[in-house]
């Protein structure tokens, strides 16, 4: 029973990590209507930046973490400048497809810059787990869970309650309308990518702390995707619930069902849950409903 509860807690925390990565998707979507397929790549880039500042430059964590976040933001900004700015005014679809190109491109660039080697990743959160009686909670996931919740609450306040947030919402609705009202679509998208890159870097730190880093780490992007859809692409607060549900479901499947069937249903379960919810609510739990009017 203790183990069962522990599995639920760990699952929920992993789910929150997914939610954090998914927040990268959502933030970019929420401020620009662009679905960023290259989100997983942003996670690796963040990872490599952290690796570079700690392992290569040898900076202490206190220095390297803020430095990495700034660098990540710059990378996000650069990507936006190079690839997306020129497309403002074109269909959103084109922008989304640019991110498909980016997915392939960034993967190659990471390889070119950092090579394929498996790199040690710094230990950012203590390796010793937290023991609660018989239960054990990995520190990185615990810290990640807290960060996720704080970030989600903060960002959803920002998007829903502040004037800037509303401006970005307008961009997400309709680029042309937003810019015809004097809202800088460029600024909104740039902000989104900076934020998306920073969130991804935080995600990378939690995900990879004390482990190893290769470009395969980008898979977490697609692991987090169901969480984003489950919550609905416009909902930041909803990610918490979605992450917890999916994380628990996945953990229980991996721990109790997979040994029985001898397969890895665990990795598919998030997608199955996502499909199920979308069939009931086609835009996720809290996403904007499609408006059809004639």
């Amino acid at each position, binding site marked *: 029973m203790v183990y069962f509860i522990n599995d639920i807690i760990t699952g929920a925390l992993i789910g929150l990590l997914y939610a954090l990565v998914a927040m990268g998707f959502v933030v970019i979507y929420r401020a620009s209507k662009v679905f960023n397929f290259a989100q997983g790549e942003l996670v690796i880039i963040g990872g490599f930046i952290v690796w570079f500042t700690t392992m290569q430059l040898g900076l202490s964590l206190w220095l390297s973490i803020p430095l990495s976040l700034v660098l990540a933001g710059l990378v996000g900004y650069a990507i936006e400048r190079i690839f997306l700015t020129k497309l*403002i*005014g*074109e*269909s959103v679809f084109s922008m989304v497809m640019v991110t498909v190109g980016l997915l392939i491109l960034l993967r190659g660039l990471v390889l070119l810059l950092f090579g394929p080697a498996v790199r040690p990743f710094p230990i950012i959160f203590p390796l010793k787990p937290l023991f609660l009686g018989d239960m054990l909670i990995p520190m990185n996931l615990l810290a990640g869970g807290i960060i996720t919740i704080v970030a989600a609450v903060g960002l959803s306040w920002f998007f829903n309650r502040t*004037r800037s947030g*509303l*401006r970005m*919402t*307008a961009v997400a*609705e*309709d*680029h*042309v*309308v*937003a*810019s*015809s*009202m*004097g*809202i*800088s*679509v*460029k600024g909104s998208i740039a902000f989104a990518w900076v934020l998306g890159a920073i969130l991804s870097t935080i995600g990378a730190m939690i995900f990879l702390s004390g482990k190893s880093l290769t470009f395969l780490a980008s898979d977490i992007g697609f692991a987090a995707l169901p969480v984003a859809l489950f919550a609905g692409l*416009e909902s930041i607060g909803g990610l918490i619930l979605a992450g917890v549900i999916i994380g628990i479901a996945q953990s229980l499947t991996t721990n109790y069902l997979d040994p029985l069937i001898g397969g890895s249903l665990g990795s598919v379960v998030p997608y199955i849950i996502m499909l199920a919810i979308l069939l009931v609510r086609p835009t996720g739990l809290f996403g*904007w*409903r499609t*408006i059809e*009017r004639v």
Partner: protein
Amino acid sequence: MAPALILSAGRNIMLELNNVEVTYSDVILALKGVSMTVREGQCVALLGGNGAGKSTTLKAISGTLKSEDGTVSAGSIVLNGTAIQNMEASNVVKNGLIHVMEGRRVLRHLTSEQNLIVGGHMVPNTAELKRRLDHVYTLMPRLADLRNRTSGFMSGGEQQLLLIGRAMMAKPKIIAIDEPSLGLAPMMIRDVYAVLRQLKSEGTTFFLVEQNSAAALSIADYAYVMENGRIVMDGPADKLADNEDIKEFYLGVTASGERKSYREIKHYRRRKRWLG
């Protein structure tokens, strides 16, 4: 053209189009050298048949052509001394022009009031924002009733009102508005025009594209008529309202001043085109 000069004498030019050409998709030439002048405080109407290029003119001014693969391929557009052809739409707004687009483009998932707030996003403080909201609501009480309605679900006319209100929120120097009366009930048209007149009296300049020529000419100081991407006629509004052809084709009254009956129209139709 003398009266026009008199009318506009002493007023600054706010918006000027010089031989503007607009090309869509690199091949379709939609405006073929259009020149116009809008002076401060004036209301200038742009009339013309379907496909004449009226909306294209507005889009060229406001910088929203790009999303339809169009560009200003020649000529210049000057707003308050700044050249704005092919400028990004959001910067045109910063220069004081708001374009109320055709097609009822409300921010559909936001409520009516949120739409208005976004419209006033450049307002520096909350008190001022509140004041402008109230101003909109007093001029258009219907919007006050609808303030919490998701704008995407509102009726066509309601959305039209919202767009006008949203433009007002930015307190622009000049509003370029595309067919404000489109889809409005007769009473509502009167109300909307009353609002426009009110704004005009408060000093807002208008660039007005209309099909409802009667309404447009009733408020406009000066009017241009466009056909096929060219200006074919222009003059002070009252002058144009007396023009025979304008009467027949835009105001729907016969030369004798009577309204024609739609039932009486025969199978043959007189087709007369101005050659530009």
